[in-house]
């Protein structure tokens, strides 16, 4: 029971990070119907910038919270600039080109960003300096750390903030109008270029915070972290229904839970010794408390992908999305 609860807590933590990154994918997709391939790398750059600042300040006498805050505050504008550049270089000039073109420039940009990060920060992962007193609380036999609580609360706050921005402000209306129909929105006086650039910038800003959260949860940041994080967040966005903000949040949290529970239980479930199979050879393998595990927890990264495929097969529009036709 407590293992289940523990996995749920861990899943909620990573899931809320996925949700915040997924928001970046879903907003851009909602407005221009294209996947921002380099979003994962922007998140990675956010984590790297923040870690550098935090490491530089770690020796000072500032309180730890201020140091972490300084890291986040440095990362947000860095990522926003990155998001803006990305839109200007890889997407805007190709907005009327065949769909393949921006996809290719975006993947090119993500390779460039990844290797520039490698040049700037090196091959070795950056470690998160031990400055926060990570207290652990027990609830119902499971443990939750203060970092986990902070990640979950901060993610919820950002999701709430974004919802308020999109549904309650003038600019949010412009974003939704552009998502509905770029041309008509333009006729109504919406500056489509500004709206599109804004979705990239807002997504990148959210991604910066997500990168810091992800990095501090695992204690390291690495130039390759954007790849799998981006892939998972994208899966989350598709699961929730791409283009749908509430969907991204739901998808992220569900994916985090599936991943945590899957990783936690897959070893036990695929242990053939616990299956009612009678086979002489297998019995020999299982003798003396041995086990025969088909898939262990090292398959963690597979779950998001399986989820993505299953959603695409059975419900391509996602949980909350509208039907996606081949050409929207």
């Amino acid at each position, binding site marked *: 029971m407590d293992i289940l609860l523990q996995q749920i807590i861990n899943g909620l933590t990573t899931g809320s990070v996925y949700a915040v990154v997924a928001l970046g994918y879903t907003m851009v997709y909602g407005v221009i119907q*294209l*996947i921002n*391939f380099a979003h994962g790398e922007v998140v990675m750059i956010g984590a790297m910038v923040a870690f550098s600042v935090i490491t530089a300040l770690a020796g000072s006498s500032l309180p730890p919270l201020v140091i972490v805050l300084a890291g986040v505050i440095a990362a947000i504008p860095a990522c926003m600039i990155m998001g803006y550049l990305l839109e200007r*270089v*890889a997407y805007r*000039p*190709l907005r*009327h*080109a*065949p*769909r*393949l*073109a*921006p*996809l*290719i*420039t975006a*993947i*090119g*940009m*993500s*390779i*460039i960003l*990844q*290797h*520039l990060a*490698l*040049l700037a920060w090196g091959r070795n992962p950056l470690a998160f300096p031990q400055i926060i007193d990570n207290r652990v609380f027990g609830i119902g036999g499971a443990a939750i750390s203060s970092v986990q609580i902070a990640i979950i609360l901060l993610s919820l706050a950002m999701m709430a903030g974004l919802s308020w921005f999109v549904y309650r402000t003038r600019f949010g209306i412009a974003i939704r109008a552009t998502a509905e129909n770029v041309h008509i929105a333009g006729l109504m006086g919406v500056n489509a270029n500004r709206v599109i650039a804004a979705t990239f910038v807002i997504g990148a800003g959210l991604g910066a915070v997500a990168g810091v959260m992800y990095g501090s949860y695992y204690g390291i940041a690495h130039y390759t972290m954007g*790849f*799998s994080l981006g*892939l998972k967040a*994208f*899966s989350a966005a*598709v699961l929730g229904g791409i283009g749908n903000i509430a969907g991204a949040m739901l998808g992220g949290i569900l994916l985090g839970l599936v991943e945590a529970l899957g990783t936690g239980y897959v070893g036990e479930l695929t242990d*053939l010794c616990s299956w009612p199979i009678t086979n002489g050879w297998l019995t020999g*393998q299982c003798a003396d408390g041995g086990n*025969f*595990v*088909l*898939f*262990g927890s*090292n*398959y963690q*990264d*597979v779950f*998001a*992908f399986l989820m*993505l*495929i299953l959603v*695409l*097969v059975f419900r*391509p529009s996602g949980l909350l999305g509208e039907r*996606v036709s*081949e*050409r*929207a």
Partner: protein
Amino acid sequence: MKTNRERFGLALIAIALIALPFVLAAAGTAWVRITNFAVLFVLLSLGLNIVVGFAGLLDLGYVAFFAVGAYVYALLASPHFGLHLPFWVILPIGATVACLAGVILGAPTLRLRGDYLAIVTLGFGEIVRIFMNNLSSPVNLTNGPKGINRIDPFQIGPLDFSASDTLGTLVFSGPIKYYYFLLLVLLAVIVINRRLQDSRIGRAWVAIREDEIAAKASGINTRNIKLLAFAMGASFGGIAGGMFAAIQGFVSPESFILNESIMVLAMVVLGGMGNIWGVIAGAVLLSFVPELLRYTVEPAQMALFGKLLVDPEVLRMLVFGLALVLTMRFRPAGLWPETRHRREMDADRA
């Protein structure tokens, strides 16, 4: 009809290609090996060109099919399982398995928009690597990150591709024999590609690439035709993978990372999507980039700074990334574009 001039040109190219390994061997066998890998990359690019160039589907995990082919070869012709099947049996098996993988992956995603395919293939490439890394327990299938060693070389009767033979005064070293074999395969692949391009299927691919709705309205079963492109590209990748395993004698998951897929994609895009000769030129050009960097950037940095500041490997990836971005921005149909493709890529930008 070909003119005499064209025939003469083709004959010259053929003679140059046949003489090439002996010229290279004079400079060192390493150059023959480098050339062999370049030809292998040409094969891979031609395979990916069917998917990206002809049918316009972005496949970012192409290296996965290459990996499948390589592992099929490694498992069926190495001491790992004690199996030693001849290569002409394994290569078709590898192609079939890679093709099946392509169909399984493509079937759920190809009815959706192209971007989904791109990201699903991206993930698939990674998943294949995870499986290769972890399928060493409970049954040791892939030998995990250590990879599979001592893979059999090609063998045709008494002709062993790993040993040297002499014919008169000419020394046929192992890499030279592989070179000629690769050249034959390349020739076959080029012929198949040309025939495909001009066939009903090839025209259907281009139609889908240019306007999927119009293609559908013209009676093309778009899903099946796309699936066919995907499966065909995958089979070519599987064959190239099998030859890679034999030439290298060793496979490990390390050889099949995302960067390899990006490299092949850069070759196709830079040369000119959809144009066979452009793709070949792009692949040859980019295959020699790492060698070029190794021989220029490393010594230059050592001379200037006394130490290696920028790893040539990193520069290589930056070059590929830039090639993708710059080609799409400034010459979207590639350096040597196919006429129809150029019209299509430029018309939309006007």
